């Protein structure tokens, strides 16, 4: 999975460079999120602006990241969800669980 990682405003930003998260790459996403937390991230923002499709395994990978961050009392936010991707969170009520921002810029200024 192609992911661009950078530190901005003291937060670790993981920008997903794929248009699709499914069972083929969700395991890798889960590992990347865990690694960012283990590497000492103070707060994590996952930028999903390029993602047009996500399935149940992709949601599971993000939930894993959220739970691992919560265990460490580390902030975990999602940004830039496309409408169809957001609809998946709404269908499963997960939009009530995650901190979701319309854009990376708004997530960083929060």
């Amino acid at each position, binding site marked *: 999975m192609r992911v661009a990682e950078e530190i901005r405003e003291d937060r670790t930003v993981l920008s997903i460079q794929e248009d699709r998260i499914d*069972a*083929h790459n969700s395991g890798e996403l889960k590992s990347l999120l865990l690694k960012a937390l283990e590497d000492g991230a103070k707060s994590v923002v996952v930028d999903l602006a390029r993602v047009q499709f996500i399935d149940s*395994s992709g949601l599971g990978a993000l939930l894993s990241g959220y739970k691992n961050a919560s265990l460490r009392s580390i902030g975990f936010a999602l940004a830039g969800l496309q409408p169809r991707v957001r609809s998946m969170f709404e269908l499963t*009520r997960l939009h009530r*669980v995650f901190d979701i921002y319309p854009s990376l810029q708004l997530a960083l200024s929060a």
Partner: protein
Amino acid sequence: MCETIVNLDIVVPSQTRYLRLVGAIVQQLAKELEVQEDKRDTLAFHLDLALTEAVANAIQYGAAANARDSIRVCLSLEDAYLSVRVFDHGRGFDLAAVPPPDFDNLCERGRGIFFIRSVMDSVQYRKTDSGNVLEMRKKIA
């Protein structure tokens, strides 16, 4: 009598790297169907989602021990319904016993069948002499 307008038979290796391909095929098929312009993209997304979940399930739970096993997908348009069938050769499962997700439980798994049921009009799973088949139907017109 049903008129079969489209009939696609797709066989891919039982590997997740082919999810993108089968998703792209059903998305393209949705764009060729005679549906309202403003509903076409949503239909394409829903069919991709249902097929991706079904094929991923078949790969994970349905494949035989042979790593070179394949997954067969049949797409057929009969009258106003698109039928999507995914065949596997595993032990199968009881679709009726799959519960809806517990929205208060942040479990990382267990939403695939829920998504399929949410976006398709009917879902059936049955065992046949030649294997198992998950059949999903969607009204198109």
